[in-house]
């Protein structure tokens, strides 16, 4: 079982050496990657997924348990310890969902008898993340953005079931984001989330800050931030409620935020 993954720094877009030269992530850690659009967040997790060895535009190198990963990881998906959920919001594959998941399960597992149950569990997981039902007979290309992302997350968690999961911008997915995090955190893995979302960032053990193609900081979530996480969650829940209200054609009233305002007043006194 994999215990640790190491990212050795490369260079930024302007060829300057990466300020954070080494990052070690251990089993069970949840890490966020933050930074402006174009700062290299997607590139960073792609480097991990590709087991970069100085052969990508960033010059980064990836070690697993301190060693260069064996070539079989890329040759045989059943050995690959990494699942990557990309930012893609549509599939290009023209297969029906069921056939696709069956094939993928057949590749990722060594136990052929499990294929059908893995497919069903994956569909079930996906349907907990999106309101639009994902069924086995739809063609992959017909899925909406939300359905696509829900299926990608479910596939990575249930079918890939790898010790390392990389997830690119879950908040843009059009899915039940908090539900996704709850479900994901039931699995002990290394999770790396690319995110702009303070709530997700505060759920993480640490965050990697990116700028101009480089990791510029590694910030561990401190005690003060952890305390603050509760307040951020409430703000976020309140906004989510408002969002749901307008989506359903309702009017927004002070009533919607009263609970939140009461909390804030209470906290200010304390």
């Amino acid at each position, binding site marked *: 079982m994999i215990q640790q993954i190491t990212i050795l720094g490369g260079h930024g877009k302007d060829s300057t050496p990466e300020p954070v030269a080494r990052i070690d992530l251990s089993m069970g850690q949840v890490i966020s990657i933050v930074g402006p659009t174009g700062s290299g967040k997607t590139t960073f997790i*792609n480097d991990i*997924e*590709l087991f970069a060895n100085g*052969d*990508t*535009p960033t010059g980064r190198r990836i070690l697993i348990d301190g060693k260069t990963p064996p070539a079989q990881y*890329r*040759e045989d*998906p059943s050995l690959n310890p990494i*699942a*990557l*959920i*990309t930012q*893609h919001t549509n*599939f*290009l*594959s*023209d*297969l029906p969902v069921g056939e*696709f998941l069956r*094939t*993928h399960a*057949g*590749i*990722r597992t060594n136990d052929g008898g499990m294929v059908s149950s893995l497919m069903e569990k994956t569909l079930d997981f996906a349907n907990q993340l999106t309101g639009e039902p994902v069924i086995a007979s739809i063609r992959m290309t017909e899925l909406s953005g939300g359905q696509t992302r829900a299926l*990608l997350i479910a*596939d*990575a968690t249930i*079918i*890939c079931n790898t010790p390392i999961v990389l997830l690119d911008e879950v908040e843009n997915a059009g899915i039940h984001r908090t539900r996704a995090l709850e479900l994901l955190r039931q699995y002990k893995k290394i999770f790396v989330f690319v995110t702009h979302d303070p709530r997700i960032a505060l759920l993480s053990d640490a965050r990697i800050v990116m700028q101009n193609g480089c990791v510029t900081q590694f910030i561990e979530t401190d005690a003060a931030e952890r305390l603050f996480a509760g307040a951020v969650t409430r703000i976020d829940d309140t906004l989510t409620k408002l969002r749901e209200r307008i989506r359903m054609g309702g009017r927004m009233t002070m009533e919607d935020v009263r609970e939140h305002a009461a909390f804030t007043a209470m906290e200010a006194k304390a």
Partner: protein
Amino acid sequence: MKLAICAGPATTGKTSVLRHLTRRLINNGLHPAFLKIDVQFADEDEVFAREFEIPARKIYSGELCPDHCSVLILGDALQWAQKADADVLLVETAGLCLRCAPYVDGGLGLMVMEATSGMNLPRKVGPMLSLADIAVVTKIDLVSQAEREVFRARIIEAAPGVRVREVNALYGIGMDPLVDHILNTPDIPEQLVLRGNPPVGTCTICVGKKEIGWQSHFGVVRALNNQNFYRGE
């Protein structure tokens, strides 16, 4: 002289892959030459000559299938490359006719496919894939990891002996193993032989006879209700 022949459907990334390979081969001290075989238009020769200052040329197959054309001209091309002091000849061919494959014994056969093409493509391309040494899957940046893995499985299912290499040919990611394959390819033998069986006979359609109906054609032909039969002149 080493030989690598790169085939694949239009716009899959053959030129992009070969450009990355050329740069890396030059960095390894080799002297590549480049040949493009296409039906009626190609500009890759100019690209390679300009970008790498290596011997580069093209040939139009016109009314012949590009792979048939390759059989006829490859001997001359190797002599040309040798005279130009090259030690590896890279051939890019359009691979339009899915009945033929351009690879030769003793040379490396690369088939380029894009990850974005349908999941059934590996089942459709026939000998162009099954006779290759390596299937190079390009445009992996455009699909999810899951789709990439299923596509790879479809290739292996259609062509069990072929190695699959996934690349991003925009940024040159995944190219190093391909370079190693070329470096490990031995020099070509004296007598070159086409790998696998070419399609039956010499087909008059391939050479541009357009009339519909087997009655207008010679060689091995077939009618709707028969097996192939030979029709001499």
